[in-house]
């Protein structure tokens, strides 16, 4: 009996967010489907999932950063920069292999993340400030390298645009890339020493240091990883929408942070799960997809999205309080 209730308590603590989110997603989907049966069609679902792929990729990186009690506001600018640099390269030599294009974007992202790392780790600038500064700087740089022009579909090679549009075994490339990254991140976070060190640094940097973890090394790597994800996502974004502009993905960092927060990643650091983040991004993706389907005017979308985030975090607080209250009550007996 004792063990069972204990296990139940642990289950509630660890998985309540995921269960709640899943229920919420199901409820929203069913409600939307009743209004418009097209929602559950294969075409719509696959569209929706491939639209969510980029968000969910970025959410992995952001989750890792937030676990270390940091934050990265610069990712949208990094995406724009890497997308622009890649698009310009493709424009200059059409024959460039798509793989190489991805690598270029990745390299730009790593570089951007590395610079931020130096400021955060070496000069101990608060992450929110460092990334706020470089958000401006990278955005400016994007305009600068492109001379405020934009690269349209006419100037891109077909192979490049196929990165995001092609399919393997009937599944969109974006979805496959996202799935691979999730598997990789799952292994990395849960089964490698370094992954566990990230959680350790996030929950208590001091004790992590005392127990022999090189916290600087961990932090440095985390921002570089985030940069790499943003760089990759930038290329995917440009390939998907077939245009690279100065204001690509402007303000997208807030969506990514919202996905993490919905998924139960605590901004205080130390906690967060990939399953939660995936569900969080899916929920945002469903909202984006479903609202137009049920004829909600596009002008209502961001108000609804904001309200849902707020309701979700508040109801989570209520739930947590109840669990805590119950655990306390059990202890008193």
């Amino acid at each position, binding site marked *: 009996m004792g063990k069972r209730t204990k296990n139940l308590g642990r289950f509630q603590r660890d998985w309540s967010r995921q269960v709640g989110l899943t229920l919420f997603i199901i409820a929203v989907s069913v409600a939307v489907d009743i209004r418009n049966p097209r929602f559950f069609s294969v075409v719509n679902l696959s569209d929706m999932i491939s639209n969510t792929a980029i968000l969910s990729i970025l959410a992995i990186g952001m989750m890792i950063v937030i676990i270390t009690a940091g934050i990265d506001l610069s990712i949208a600018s990094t995406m724009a920069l890497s997308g622009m640099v890649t698009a310009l390269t493709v424009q200059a030599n059409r024959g460039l292999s798509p793989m190489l294009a991805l690598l270029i974007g990745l390299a730009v992202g790593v570089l951007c993340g590395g610079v931020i790392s130096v400021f955060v780790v070496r000069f101990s600038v608060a992450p929110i400030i460092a990334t706020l500064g470089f958000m401006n700087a990278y955005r400016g740089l994007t*305009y600068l390298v492109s001379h405020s022009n934009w690269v349209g579909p006419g100037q891109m090679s077909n192979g490049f645009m196929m990165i995001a549009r092609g399919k393997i075994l009937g599944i969109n490339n974006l979805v496959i890339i996202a799935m691979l990254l999730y598997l990789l991140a799952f292994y990395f976070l849960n089964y490698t020493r370094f992954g566990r060190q990230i959680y350790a640094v996030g929950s208590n940097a001091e004790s992590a240091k005392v127990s022999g973890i090189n916290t600087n090394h961990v932090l440095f790597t985390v921002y570089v990883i985030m940069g790499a994800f943003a760089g990759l996502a930038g290329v995917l974004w440009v390939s998907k929408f077939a245009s690279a502009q100065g204001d690509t993905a402007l303000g997208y960092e807030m969506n990514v942070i919202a996905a993490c927060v919905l998924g139960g990643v605590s901004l205080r650091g130390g906690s967060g799960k990939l399953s939660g983040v995936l569900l969080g991004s899916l929920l945002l993706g469903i909202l984006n997809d479903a609202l137009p389907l049920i004829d909600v005017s596009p002008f209502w979308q961001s108000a609804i999205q*904001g309200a849902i985030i707020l309701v979700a*975090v508040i109801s989570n607080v209520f739930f947590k309080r109840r669990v805590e209250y119950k655990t306390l009550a059990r202890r008193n007996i």
Partner: protein
Amino acid sequence: MPKRKELITGRKSFSFKRFFLQWEWLLVLAFIAVNIFDAAISPYFLDMNNILSSTMNFLDNAFIVLPMVFVIMLGEIDISVGSTVALSAVVMGVFYDKFHTPMWLAVLICLAVGALCGLFNGMIIVKFKEIAPMIVTLSTMTMYRGIAQIIIRDQSGGNFAPWFKFLSWGYLGSIPFILVVFAVAAVIFGLLLHKTNFGRRVYAIGNNEIASLYSGIQIGRIKLIIYTLTGFMSGVAALFLSSRMGSTRSDMATGYELNAIAMVVLGGVNIMGGRGRMIGAIIAVFIIGFLKYGLGLINMSSQVVLIVIGLLLAVSVALPNIKKSGGKQRKTEEA
């Protein structure tokens, strides 16, 4: 090592070195440097009228900087201010255009909407302490702008009364009206932070929230007041911004929140809370404002301005730490 007298009284004795090594003096130096730089690159800069009227271009955002100092001093953050500006301006426009209220009433409504938005933030943040303020204001940021979009769609509003233009374009003598208002507001906020019990309590909460709770400070009430004040000042910024633009749209004031935070941090207020001064933030407003103005005078593209300001923010905050990380011992002593 602190001197013996300092240890006993707990007060540091005056030293010129320490006095001039303060962040604010560095800011003053930076301000002078920016002015010299401006004067060097453009012969048109050193003209009193030019300098004064250039302040019209950036001071609307600065009204948010003042309360943001308080928010960040608490160790918290409010990123919904830009959206609050948009919402209150849009509501004002609608009331004036559609309901034909008198202009003064529309202005009051604008301020009230701003304060309400802030109050709503504050209530949620105080009531649900578990949620980080960043998350609360992130969702209200999306929500407020969303409501503004619902109200006005993709149109623009506001054929405001002629006198309304005076707010951003008018002069009192040779001094722009907005500069006068900002000066008054800055003095009030400075006094509030440095000369009242309220201000001392804000410092206390920022330094150690739990300790200040146990010493009887009503944390909830203070936070509520500060968030409401932030919303109210966003309403003020909305007035000046819509007066300058002559219209209201749902996408106005995007990025104002991050600009304001950048200026506050550049002004030496610690993002973790509890440290900094109002004067620093005010100097930072003018540094960035004049820098933008000067770069604009020589037709520097706005892209470069973005880069310069971003780097300025990152480097200026890094600067004191570069020196510090040289001697490890000093770091631990200060920590």
